[in-house]
């Protein structure tokens, strides 16, 4: 798209990107931002942290701090959000160099629009949208947005919490690609999306009941969850695994009368 117009030297946070998104960054070589240009372990530019790992091997094993994976990484997005929308940031966490922001559902659209439209951020690409279910929590449902900026080449994860039955605001107006993602989250988690143009099941059959990716949903499914179609009735013997057969092998041979014999 407009990428050619962008200045070639990548925006202010190349070290962040390199440290954060490079190929599995070793915990030792990781705190690039914390101690910039440690003389031995600073290989050639463009991708400092992600350079051939052999080069960064000699880095002395730093004394185990709290948790190297949880190290914060500098993120322009979070800095700007702290300035512009300080009250919308409920929580900021990091894992393996990826920043995660939790925002209140009511302010989601505002935050996402800010992230998409701000000239320094330009999160124009909704990479992924999905739901999650934490049955123990007070607000058990979660929606996760993985944003990416093609011109700026950085990532951000945004999360909201939802109570049971609460609808998340639909982001189809911001990124049309959210359409099917939201349908999938609705289908598999039962998360509603207010303002979605066509919220139907997408992966499961239309007449399915229940939402399979919820934690209480059993792996093999509830028997009554979908409409039983008429048996085709060609096979005389219907073999069926019983519960024990899931673990072992003794399937049981069950002779069932299938259909009315007309099929």
């Amino acid at each position, binding site marked *: 798209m407009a990428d050619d117009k962008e200045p070639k030297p990548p925006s202010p946070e190349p070290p962040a990107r390199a440290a954060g998104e490079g190929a599995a960054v070793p915990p030792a070589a990781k705190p690039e931002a914390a101690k910039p240009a440690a003389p031995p372990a600073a290989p050639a530019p463009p991708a400092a942290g992600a350079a051939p790992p052999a080069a960064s091997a000699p880095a002395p094993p730093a004394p185990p701090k709290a948790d190297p994976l949880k190290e914060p990484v500098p993120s322009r997005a979070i800095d700007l959000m702290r300035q512009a929308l300080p009250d919308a940031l409920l929580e900021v966490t990091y894992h393996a160099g990826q920043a995660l922001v939790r925002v209140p559902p009511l302010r989601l659209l505002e935050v996402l629009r800010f992230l998409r439209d701000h000239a320094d951020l330009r999160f124009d690409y909704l990479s992924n949208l999905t739901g999650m279910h934490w049955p123990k929590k007070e607000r058990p449902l979660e929606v996760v947005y993985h944003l990416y900026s093609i011109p700026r080449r950085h990532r951000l994860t945004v999360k909201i919490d939802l109570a049971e039955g609460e609808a998340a605001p639909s982001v189809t107006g911001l990124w049309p690609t959210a359409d099917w993602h939201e349908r999938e989250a609705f289908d598999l988690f039962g998360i509603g999306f207010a303002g979605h143009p066509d919220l139907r099941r997408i992966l499961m059959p239309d007449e399915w009941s229940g939402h399979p990716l919820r934690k209480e949903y059993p792996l093999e499914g509830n028997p009554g969850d979908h409409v039983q179609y008429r048996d085709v009735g060609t096979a005389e013997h219907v073999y069926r695994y019983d519960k024990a057969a899931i*673990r072992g*092998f003794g399937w049981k041979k069950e002779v069932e009368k299938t259909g009315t014999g007309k099929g």
Partner: protein
Amino acid sequence: MSDKVIRGPRPSPVRDAVRTILLLELWVGLWTTLKNQFRPHITVEYPRETVELSPRFRGMPRLRFHPENGEELCIACHLCETVCPDECIHIVSEKKPDGKGKRLVSFQINYERCCLCGLCVDPCPTKPLTAIYMSHDYEMADFRREGFVAALPALLEGVEPREYKE
């Protein structure tokens, strides 16, 4: 260096006109198919002749005894059973009478569930020759479901790979 805009064959009025009138590219296509008739065929008549399998080919997992001294390799550690993602391995073991280690009582693989992923070979402790191995059997059709459960005797009849690892 990093991006390259592809525009396809560059237009040139004269050459394109000649091409259009003489149908040149159509002849080129015909020539290609004609040329390929003189290449050796690559398909084989499967049941009559079979392709050569590479040594690492992963067919149905089987069990083996030591090829030289015929000893039982499996030490009934249940590791393959543990890592199997499809839960298709079923092992029954008992304590050895002399008190040291365990001994197989039965070893079953359910080929109906097996996805031939080879994860069971990975942790097998009897290195270098693993007790469970991916054989070169790949014709696994059967008429009865019972035929897919291979018990110990059937498991030992596998086709060994042509060379051992290591």
